[in-house]
């Protein structure tokens, strides 16, 4: 029995406007509303809505035999709510069929997993809550930004109680091994790992419409033939791709929608195949071995490493300077600031600063709003300068209020101590030696300080 596991990633960054040095401290709005609205509307009409419609039809037609999985970043959900709420409704309709699984990720589609486990977990928790509220499902499988995975990240994810995680079936990790089995994390074997079959996934996502490709045109039957070529012992073929594959990366005219419509029939006619979702695959299959990934891998670029986002001094500088704010953010309660914090962390902002392959990154990402990586960097750093100032001011305000509160408690406690001591004297008990008295006072003073640290931790 071979399982086909279809999973689609959905994420769009909130694009930043041209933010000049003169804006720092004067203007706290960072986004290009026009670009964002037109981007989301375009995607909704060329990809999200038509593909959702097809998937809904397929699920209804194959009654329980066809299923897919999605992850939708919190940042995209926010934008859909504003610009295209009908898309959210159509995802809700998919969720209601019970054949669609929503995976967890970081709400910000951030690179936080590489550095700060605490903030990483906070962002996951936030996203889990959003998914539950929107689609009525509690995700049990985790998918990190752009499929970034390492043993250590897996360990952090396992600590949060997830049963499984998706990762890239990167050549340098697998070697001779096949991605078509269930693996587990090498530190926390309870966490199962599903590896992307990049060859077959990219046949659809990258090569489908390429007319100079030897296998063009790709049909569902041809694809099924390739599946048949996989040896019978192999258990699960993980086809993970961007949702924009349908209608954007592969245009409507390429026939991608017809391919999607025909695929379930071609596959399900053969009884040895079944569609599955990550959580079903994990409960059904036994892991064949642990997978060792000491350094992070992802699904981007030939190298499948994180240098697309953290590969030059500009990207590292922007990343480091952004995350030095983490300690302030943890004390911050301002909702507007926390939203900006989420949007600024999107991995895309770092991707635009990349200088890999070509000194000029203009031909890199789809939808890249910047002419050069340097421009992307400068714009981001200007915004960050303004944002850092706001964060620090807001925390300073909060802190002085907190200090005042704590002083109040100290006063109260002192008064109480004195009262109790007087009672002691009245009761005829000698107050202890002055030295001892001092220590009690000292502990009384210390107390608020310890209280404060626990208070901040709680946040």
């Amino acid at each position: 029995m071979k399982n086909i596991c279809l999973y689609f990633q959905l994420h769009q960054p909130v694009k930043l406007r041209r933010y000049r040095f003169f804006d720092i401290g004067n203007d706290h709005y960072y986004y290009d509303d026009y670009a964002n609205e037109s981007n989301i509307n375009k995607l909704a009409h060329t990809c999200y809505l038509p593909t959702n419609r097809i998937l809904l039809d397929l699920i209804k037609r194959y009654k329980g035999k066809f299923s897919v999985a999605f992850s939708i970043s919190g940042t995209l959900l926010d934008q859909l709510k504003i610009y295209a709420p009908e898309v959210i409704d159509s995802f809700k309709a998919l969720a209601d069929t019970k054949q669609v699984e929503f995976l967890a990720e970081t709400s910000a589609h951030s690179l936080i997993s590489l550095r700060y486990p605490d903030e990483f977990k906070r962002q996951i928790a936030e996203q889990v809550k959003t998914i539950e509220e929107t689609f009525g499902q509690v995700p049990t499988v985790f998918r990190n930004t752009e499929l970034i995975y390492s043993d250590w990240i897996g360990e952090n994810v396992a600590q949060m109680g997830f049963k499984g995680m998706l990762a890239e079936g990167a050549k340098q990790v697998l070697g001779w091994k096949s991605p078509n089995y269930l693996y587990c994390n090498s530190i926390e074997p309870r966490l199962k790992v599903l590896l992307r079959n990049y060859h077959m996934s990219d046949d659809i996502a990258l090569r489908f419409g390429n007319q100079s490709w030897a296998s063009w045109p790709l049909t569902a039957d041809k694809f099924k033939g390739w599946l048949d070529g996989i040896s019978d012992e192999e258990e699960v073929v993980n086809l993970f791709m961007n949702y924009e594959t349908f209608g954007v990366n592969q245009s409507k005219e390429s026939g991608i929608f017809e391919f999607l419509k025909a695929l379930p029939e071609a596959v399900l006619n053969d009884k040895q195949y079944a569609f599955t979702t990550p959580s079903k695959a994990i409960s059904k299959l036994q892991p064949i071995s642990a997978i060792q990934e000491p350094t992070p891998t992802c699904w981007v670029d030939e190298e499948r490493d994180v240098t697309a986002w953290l590969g030059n001094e500009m990207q590292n500088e922007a990343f480091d300077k952004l995350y030095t704010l983490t300690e302030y953010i943890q004390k911050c309660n301002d909702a507007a600031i926390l939203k900006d914090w989420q949007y600024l962390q999107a991995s895309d902002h770092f991707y635009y600063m990349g200088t890999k392959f070509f000194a000029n990154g203009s031909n890199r990402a789809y939808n890249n709003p910047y002419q050069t990586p340097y421009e992307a960097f400068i714009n981001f750093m200007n915004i960050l300068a303004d944002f850092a100032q706001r964060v620090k001011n807001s925390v300073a305000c909060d802190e002085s209020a907190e200090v005042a509160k704590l002083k109040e408690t100290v006063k109260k406690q002192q008064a109480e101590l004195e009262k109790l001591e007087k009672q002691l004297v009245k009761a005829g008990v000698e107050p202890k030696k002055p030295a001892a008295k001092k220590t009690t006072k000292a502990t009384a003073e210390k107390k608020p300080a310890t209280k404060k640290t626990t208070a901040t931790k709680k946040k």
Partner: protein
Amino acid sequence: MKVLMFGWEFPPHISGGLGTACYGITRGMASIPDLDVLFVVPKAFGDEDKSKVEDIIGANNISVKNKKLRMSHLSKTLEYIEVDSKLVPYVDPEDYYRLRSLNVGEDFRFLQTDGEGKFSFTGKYGSTLLQEIHNYAIVANIIAQEHTFDVIHAHDWLTYPAGIAAKEATGKPLVIHVHATDFDRSGGSVNPVVFDIEKRGMEAADKIITVSNLTRSIVIEKYGIPAEKVVTVYNAVDPLKQEMTNYAPKGINEKIVTFLGRITMQKGPEYFIEAAHKVLQKMDNVRFVMAGSGDMMEKMIRRAASLKIMDRFHFTGFLRGQDVYSMLHMSDLYVMPSVSEPFGISPLEAMQSNVPVLISYQSGVAEILTYAIKTDYWDVDAMADAMYAVLNYPALGEVFAKYGKEEVDSLQWENSARKMKSVYDSVVYK
């Protein structure tokens, strides 16, 4: 006395130092009663009304347009001739080739930034820069024959051949004005073709005006020109216009140190970054701004990023018009660490805005300024030291700002123009 001047377009069309200086000089000269200027500029004709352009040279197909300009606050008019030529200041043969090769069709119009601003080009280019200079000289020869004047004045090397041609056509004395030499632009590794044109211009000239003694000594030493032929006349600066004082608000409650200029080797941007890094080790309520663009900008961004100071170091890109004055207005210190600057008008503009300035000894303007902090461009420690002092001991900055303003207000183009007039006198009535 009438001067045939081969100059450059006025600001705001071209915002480099050369255009600014030409404007200042003609303005200064307008204040001298018996001095008239016939001003010739290269200008690529674009979407203007072609019918007004007299086509005077069929063979080269170069059009020339006569204009009369009213000087804003003077009763005089300036005779102004625009020549259809794609010469722009600061280009060298390689730049020119690049500009030319970018141009695909006759009607194709594009904007090209050379670091100082955007220049629009239209139509066909001469096959090489040298061809273009040559064509310009032919036009100059004909203009010279059609007008009467007493002396020829040519600004910077691209117009020297035109000056020579005019001199050959009429026998009138030639004064060339050296705003920069190729030694300044290239940092020592001169382009032999450019050097040759410069040297021929200097040799053909009856008198040479240099913008500082620093440049004067380069002309004497590197080009082998007799010292008595070379005279220094310092530049000046236009008074601040009222409309330039409508500043953007300063949103930051921190000190700002500004570098404003082309980000090229000549301007020493890397020393500014290194000094900024040193200052940031000692204090943190300061931001550094590098305003401008240029061929070294990307390298500088990477350097600042690898020093990990990009949270306090900002690149604004090229600033124009009002933004320049807003930037100066919010600055607490202006720094010009030029490696080789023949003059350098921009610190004077900073001083007009009441900003203390830190300049390198290797800039011509250092010769005339008393109320400016001066260090060697390479002495990053001294530069950092001076920055720290101005930022932390407010009295120091106040002194420089106050007396610097007085000092710069006394530098007037009228004075420079009078000195040029005496240079003309020395060649006309010898």
